[in-house]
């Protein structure tokens, strides 16, 4: 991480802006949920994402009726969009845990403005990711066979297969992310409960707040639990995508069987995760006027993380190519040095290099790091690039492996695309709902930050009790 993550000083914009008080922070954030009516823009956005989600529903229904034959997967490419989308969504989910767990333990205060949103994004991304392994099963209705449970077949899942490791990695990740997010929400839910005028909202937030009263005992336990959860979540940042990369590395397919995969998959996950956080927060802060909380400082810090992890990813590509050459293994050399850059999918490969390695280099220039529009465009390019990366890994290797006589091209069908864009619809729809019903920024941690910046000498009022 770069020096930009240190506490702001002097000419840099503070986090949050100094004219906020504990009261105004609470007002400003909770009003998005409680006071502001949903706008025209929200309705249009929600409708579009809802329609996209219906496309997902349609694609899934057709899939369940007709089977995976509606997809483009054909021998020899038996892994297609489903795996590409799975890895892409899981990767996007990584930013949430990194921001909430690792940056919390490293005491990076600037995480406070974005952690709630990033965690929600993580959950929704993991939900989208979790769909694909189930959809790609030949008989999706027996997906529970993936879990080890007492059954009448007298069988356990195949423990030597990384697919079963995936099941554990992803379900653990989803559970811990959900708990972490929910525990962090509890004091904010209590704030919403206390401030809402609507009876139904009071009851709903009241149930979810689990009787939070803001007593110092509550705060003490809350703080301990939150730190413990952060400690528990930290290894997950590294483990989940490592295990996802094992789906490839454990196989002997050329271009997959490589020890560089785990580290560069993890870096790629954080890379794409932060890109997605930027893609979503830049419009969000503008629409809801949150520039005071999510400042240029935040955007710049995230841009620096993207630049750093992007360079790790680029290094990963380089080492992959170098090792293929150094190994002198003809299949590996053909795959990495010939098939990818010069083969029938070369255009995809060079697009991925442009999106992931070249364009992020613009972030060396401060103007690109601080200009929201430029940063937004770059973040979308990175997202596209990371999807293409997984496409190249999955498809190119399978379409041209050891035996030239079995080589064949792969293309997604309309149903593949419908499922991909439909999952984006599901993701966006969940986010639109989240923005309407829960505080997008942690009110509690914001109040705490304002209190600390005011020099610790304020009275402990307005629910800003220092834990």
């Amino acid at each position: 991480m770069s020096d930009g993550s240190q506490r702001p000083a002097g000419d840099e914009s503070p986090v949050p802006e100094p004219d906020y008080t504990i009261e105004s922070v609470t007002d400003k954030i909770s009003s998005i949920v409680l006071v502001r009516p949903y706008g025209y823009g929200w309705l249009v956005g929600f409708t579009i994402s809802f329609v996209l989600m219906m496309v997902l529903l349609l694609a899934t229904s057709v899939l369940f009726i007709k089977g995976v034959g509606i997809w483009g997967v054909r021998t020899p490419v038996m892994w297609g969009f489903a795996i590409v989308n799975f890895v892409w969504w899981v990767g996007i989910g990584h930013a949430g845990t990194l921001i909430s767990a690792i940056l919390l333990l490293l005491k990076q205060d600037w995480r406070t403005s974005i952690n709630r949103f990033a965690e929600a994004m993580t959950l929704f991304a993991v939900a989208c990711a979790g769909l694909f392994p189930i959809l790609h099963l030949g008989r999706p209705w027996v997906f529970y066979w993936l879990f080890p449970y007492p059954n009448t077949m007298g069988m356990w899942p195949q423990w030597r297969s990384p697919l079963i490791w995936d099941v554990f990695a992803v379900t653990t990740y989803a559970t811990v992310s959900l708990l972490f997010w929910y525990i962090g929400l509890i004091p904010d839910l209590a704030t919403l409960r206390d401030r809402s005028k609507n009876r139904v909202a009071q009851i709903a937030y009241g149930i979810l707040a689990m009787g939070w009263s803001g007593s110092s005992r509550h705060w003490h336990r809350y703080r301990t639990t939150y730190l413990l959860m952060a400690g528990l979540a930290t290894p997950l940042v590294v483990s989940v995508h490592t295990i996802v990369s094992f789906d490839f590395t454990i196989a002997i397919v050329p271009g997959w069987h490589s020890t560089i995969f785990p580290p560069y998959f993890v870096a790629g996950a954080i890379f794409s995760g932060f890109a997605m956080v930027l893609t979503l927060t830049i419009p969000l802060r503008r629409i809801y006027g949150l520039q005071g909380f999510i400042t240029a400082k935040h955007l710049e810090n995230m841009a620096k993380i993207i630049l750093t992890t992007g360079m790790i990813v680029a290094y990963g590509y380089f080492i992959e190519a170098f090792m293929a050459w150094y190994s002198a293994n003809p299949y590996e050399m053909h795959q990495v040095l010939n098939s990818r850059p010069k083969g029938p999918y070369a255009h995809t490969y060079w697009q991925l290099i442009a999106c992931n390695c070249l364009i992020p280099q613009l972030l060396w220039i401060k103007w690109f790091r601080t200009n929201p529009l430029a940063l937004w465009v770059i973040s979308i390019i990175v997202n596209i690039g990371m999807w293409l990366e997984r496409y190249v890994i999955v498809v190119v290797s399978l379409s041209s492996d050891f035996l030239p006589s079995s080589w064949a091209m792969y293309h997604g069908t309309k149903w593949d695309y419908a499922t991909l864009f439909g999952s984006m619809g599901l993701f966006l729809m969940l986010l639109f709902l989240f923005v309407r019903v829960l505080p997008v920024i942690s009110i509690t941690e914001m109040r705490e930050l304002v209190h600390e910046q005011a020099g610790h000498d304020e009275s402990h009022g307005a629910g800003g009790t220092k834990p």
Partner: protein
Amino acid sequence: MPQIFHPSLNTLSRLSIFGGAFAALGLLAISYMLVGSPYQTQVGIIHDQPVQFSHEHHVGGLGIDCRYCHTSVEISAVSGVPPTYTCMSCHSQIWSESPMLQPVRDSLKNDTPIAWAKVHDLPDFVYFHHGIHIQKGIGCVSCHGRIDQMPLTFKDKPLTMEWCLECHRHPEKYIRPYEEIFNMEWKPPGGDQLTLGRKLIEDNHIPVDRLTNCSVCHR
């Protein structure tokens, strides 16, 4: 500000959390018990048959050999449900006026087979061969139970994959000499099944390590 919830809801909320956990576990336990119960496996359940045929009478009472009716059991995948002619080899002479046997006589007269209800019905994705089991030393009773004591036929074993695998993993616990295959009352000499079983595995060249390969049953 007035209270949103009555204080009694504190207890209720605690109860609902614990209750929810127990309810979830309970549901899992119930579904596990259901799939192993006769409701699912049909163990001990008697199906309606066109003729009230008694194995107890024909096997236990009269001592007819299994192979008299199930002719192909030693060599074929299926044991063979006997044609009406087999029944008539006796019943054209004895009980030839019995009203219970009217469907059998109708079958012969109209040249239509008797539509027995299948009691042991394996899923279509399972390949099962009677012949190999008999040749390698699995007795009828091991899978069909004491058929010589069943007035009406029912399934004695669940035929779940778990049950199949139990024997495929440890055949020495069940295997018997070829001469005793059709003997319903056979016990291992001296009660030492394991020693005999291991010897028979050697003698019959049974590849135990390959018995649990997927393609042994799922072809």
